[in-house]
C-alpha cells in the first residue's frame, strides 16, 4: 500500500516538473515573438510614415562643376511624410549613376529651419554630393544624363537630370 503512495507521489512530482517545463518553454517563446512583433511593427510604422521627395528643378542646374575637381551635385529634398529624420541626412542611402555614395561623400543641412535638431515634416534638406569622393565617377560631361537614387526607410526616390552645355 505504501509503495502505491510513493509511486503516486513520484508521478505527481514528475507531472508538475513536466508541466513547469512546458510552461517555461511556451512563455519564453511568447516573449521572443512579442519582442519581434514590437520591433517589426515599429519598423513597419517608420516605413509607412517616411516619405521624402526631391523638389529640385532638374533643369535649374543641380550640378556645380566648379566645386572641387569633379564638381558637386546639390539636391533639395523635402520631408513630405510624418516621420522625423536625421537633420544631417544620416540614414539616407544614395546611389549616383549606379555608384554607391558613401556617407563621407555627402553632407546634409536642413535649410528651412535654422539650427534644426531634426529633419521634420515639411522641412527641406539640402543634400550635397561631392563627386570627388565617389569611386568611378569623374566630372560630368556636357551634355550628359544622370540619375540619383535616394532611399530612406524603404522610401525610394529617383531624380534624373541632364547637364546642359553652358
Amino acid at each position, binding site marked *: 500500500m505504501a509503495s502505491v503512495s510513493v509511486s*503516486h507521489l513520484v*508521478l*505527481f512530482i514528475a*507531472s*508538475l516538473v*513536466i*508541466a*513547469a517545463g*512546458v*510552461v*517555461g518553454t*511556451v*512563455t519564453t*517563446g*511568447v*516573449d521572443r*515573438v*512579442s*519582442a519581434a*512583433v*514590437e520591433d*517589426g*511593427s*515599429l519598423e*513597419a*510604422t517608420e*516605413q*509607412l*510614415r517616411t*516619405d521624402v*521627395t526631391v*523638389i*529640385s*528643378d532638374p*533643369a*535649374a*542646374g*543641380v550640378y556645380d562643376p566648379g566645386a572641387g575637381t569633379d564638381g558637386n551635385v*546639390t539636391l*533639395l529634398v*523635402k520631408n*513630405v*511624410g*510624418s516621420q522625423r529624420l536625421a537633420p544631417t541626412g544620416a540614414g539616407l542611402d544614395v546611389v549616383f549613376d549606379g555608384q554607391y555614395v558613401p556617407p563621407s561623400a555627402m553632407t546634409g543641412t536642413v*535649410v*528651412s529651419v535654422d539650427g534644426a535638431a531634426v529633419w521634420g515634416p*515639411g522641412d*527641406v534638406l*539640402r543634400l550635397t554630393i561631392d563627386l570627388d569622393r565617389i569611386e568611378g565617377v569623374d566630372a560630368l560631361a556636357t551634355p550628359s544624363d544622370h540619375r540619383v537614387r535616394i532611399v530612406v526607410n524603404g522610401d525610394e526616390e529617383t531624380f534624373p537630370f541632364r547637364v546642359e552645355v553652358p
Partner: protein
Amino acid sequence: MGVSVSASAAVVAAGLFIALTTGYPAAANGFDRVAEGTADSHERALDRHHTAITVQTATFNASGNGALTLTVVNDGADALVVDDLTLLADNAFVDVAADPAWTSVEGLEATGLVLPGETLTMSVPDDAVTADLAGATRVTVATGTGVRAVAEVSG
C-alpha cells in the same frame, strides 16, 4: 493520479494565461501602430491627389522694386497653407515664411491660407535673402505634400 493530472493542468493553464497576457498587448499595440501608419499614408496620398498648383507668372524687378514676384494659383480641391510652401530660385532655397508681408492671397496679407481657386502672390526682395534672385532663371514652388510647379522667370 487524478490529482497529478489536475495539478499539472493547472500549472499549464496558469502558464498559458501569463503568456497570453504578455503576448496580447504586444500584438494589439503592434497592429494599432501599423494601422495608424497605413491610415496616415493613405491620408497623405489623398491630400496629394487633391493638390494642384500653377505658377502663373514669375518676374524679377518688373515694377522696379528689386523683388522676385510670383503668382501661384491653387488649382486643387484642398486649401494650401502658405507656411508649408517651399520656393526655390534656380536650385537655391528661399525662405518665404521669413516675412509675412512677402505673401498675400487675393490682396489679403493677413491670411495664411490659399483656398481652391485663389491666387497667392509672393514678392521676395533680392536684398533680404541669401539666394541670388536677380540671376535666377527658373523658380519652383512645392507644396507641403510635395506637389511642384515650375516656371521661367521673365523680366
